[in-house]
């Protein structure tokens, strides 16, 4: 068998794969490598461990309260636990999302690995796509770990499969996807991770406050004073441009509905499309910046 391979080392399937498969081969290699590298970043591991501790700790807490004999309202207990866990997942999840999305491209420019990668037959589009997919892999794995622990926790407590939690986690991913795409885009322009981290936090925070921005936009501009008008414009601009991340939150439903209720009046397919569109916009901005970037 070795004989054969020595005689015909250039069998076409082996050596000259089609254009599409060369593209996906490179893309896959970059994505997997990004994922492997990201999963060993200390900040990421730190946030993940913290969030798992919090989720685990909340469980422990209720177990303690229940056996403590104090006649506390168990209804209230589970609500508290759910609240803590959902908050932990959002906060730590978004921190992981922002830190990883912010550092993949600037980090590689800094350590100059990017020279060896982009000098290969790799398109810049393909490189960015690989990096972005690798980041998504990291975010999804983290969400799955945190959500998984929470899921088990709830199931043991309530004895019913908390399917509503799955929907919550599912929508949370699309919220993270938007934050990730824009942070990533800022990272394409920056030379270190500092600016994109700040930008990512800004998008996450303001994206969760768009309702208020709308309020400000409606109320401002009544006095015709310059500052008032300017704030009105700014608020209107941000309100129209920024994604409304609140829409992705099923937190209240999770707190007040039954764990296996279907999500009420949340337009899941619409939210998915909304998330994908915003993420695509962020990615395209990143690509436009990166396309002619001097390395």
């Amino acid at each position, binding site marked *: 068998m070795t004989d054969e391979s020595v005689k015909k080392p250039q069998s076409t399937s082996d050596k000259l794969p089609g254009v599409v498969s060369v593209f996906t081969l490179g893309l896959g290699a970059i994505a997997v490598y990004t994922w*492997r590298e990201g999963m060993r970043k200390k900040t990421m591991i730190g946030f993940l461990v913290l969030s798992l501790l919090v989720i685990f700790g909340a469980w422990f807490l209720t177990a303690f309260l229940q056996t403590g004999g104090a006649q506390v309202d168990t209804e209230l207990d589970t609500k508290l636990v759910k609240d803590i866990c959902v908050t932990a997942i959002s906060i730590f999840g978004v921190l992981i999302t922002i830190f990883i999305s912010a550092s993949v491209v600037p980090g590689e420019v800094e350590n100059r690995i990017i020279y060896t*990668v982009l000098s290969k037959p790799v398109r810049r589009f393909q490189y960015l796509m690989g990096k972005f997919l690798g980041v998504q892999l990291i975010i999804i794995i983290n969400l799955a770990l945190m959500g998984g622990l929470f899921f088990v926790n709830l199931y043991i407590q309530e004895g019913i499969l908390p399917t509503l939690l799955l929907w919550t986690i599912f929508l949370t991913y699309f919220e993270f996807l938007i934050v990730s795409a824009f942070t990533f885009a800022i990272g394409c322009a920056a030379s270190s991770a500092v600016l994109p981290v700040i930008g990512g936090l800004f998008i996450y925070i303001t994206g969760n406050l768009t309702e208020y921005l709308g309020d400000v936009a409606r109320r401002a501009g009544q006095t015709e004073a310059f500052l008032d008008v300017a704030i009105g414009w700014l608020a209107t601009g941000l309100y129209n441009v920024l994604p409304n991340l609140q829409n992705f939150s099923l937190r209240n439903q999770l707190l007040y509905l039954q764990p296996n209720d279907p999500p009420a009046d949340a337009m899941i397919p619409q939210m998915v499309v909304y998330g994908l569109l915003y993420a695509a916009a962020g990615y395209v901005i990143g690509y436009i910046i990166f396309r002619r970037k001097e390395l």
Partner: protein
Amino acid sequence: MTQETLNEEPAAETQPLGEARTPDPDGRIPVIETYGLTKTYETKTEDVHALRDLNLTVYQGEIFGYLGPNGSGKTTTIKLLLGLIFPTDGSMAIMDSESIGSIHVRRNIGYLPEGAYYPDFLKGEEVLRFYGKLYGLRGRALERRIDEVLEMVGMTGARRRLVGGYSKGMRQRIGLAQAMISDPQILILDEPTTGLDPIARKEIRDVLVKLRDEGKTLLISSHELLEVEMICDRVGILHNGMLQTIGALDDLLVQRDITLEVEVPSESAVHELSRFGIISEDMVDGKALLRVPANVSLYEAIEQCQHNNVSLLSVRPRRETLEELFVRVVGAAEENKEINQV
């Protein structure tokens, strides 16, 4: 013609070499060309003119030594050729293709960056597997190629160790291996032998010469003039972003001085000779190597030797070393620059 046939066999590994390329009058085929290439970095404080009007040609099947003092623009040229940065003015062609960034061109290029760094959480062989995939290699062909290049750079023993634990020279070797992973037609190496031990240098030189003999084209930037002199066919010397001289080593290194091998009775005799401009280069056990510069006549030198009881053992023409050429060319360029500034 012969060079073109040389090409056919290994080309299957990558892509066949471009379109029909026209040999120049000497029958040489240009592989890398730049026309009026200019690069100005715009920094916050000033504009850095890293390259000015560079016209460079590297031919197929040669090792081209790209020389110049620190900051003269070597790395800048190389990055431009790879599409990592973009020219301020001028253009380039690689294998007759002017679209430098196109992946068809880059499929034929292997590149070793200056002071490169590799993913340190991967093992040596995993790094090569990663880069091989970027060329579209896979499966058994890729594994075989990884074995080959590891052998070429002498890293077979350390292939399963993490790159993070590699020494400087080992990192450089793995860098060379990744540059060669696709068996490219063109190798662009930015200071390939820095950090290597003497044995490794020799081995790498042998590898580079072997690749040249296979018909590959190599562009090597380096400060190791002795090595360049040993393996390069042509060199170009850059200074302050301008090409000062370019050509075949045999044409550039003038053979005007003469070396005399002599037996000297005493040190004072050598001292006496130096008054006539004859330079002592080396002296051991009463034997000396004397250099007779072009401006001293050989007859007079021999006469003076006899006069001082110095007996002649041999007389031979002496070729200028690359180092001397470098110092001469860069020195002249420095002077010109100063004159222009005054």
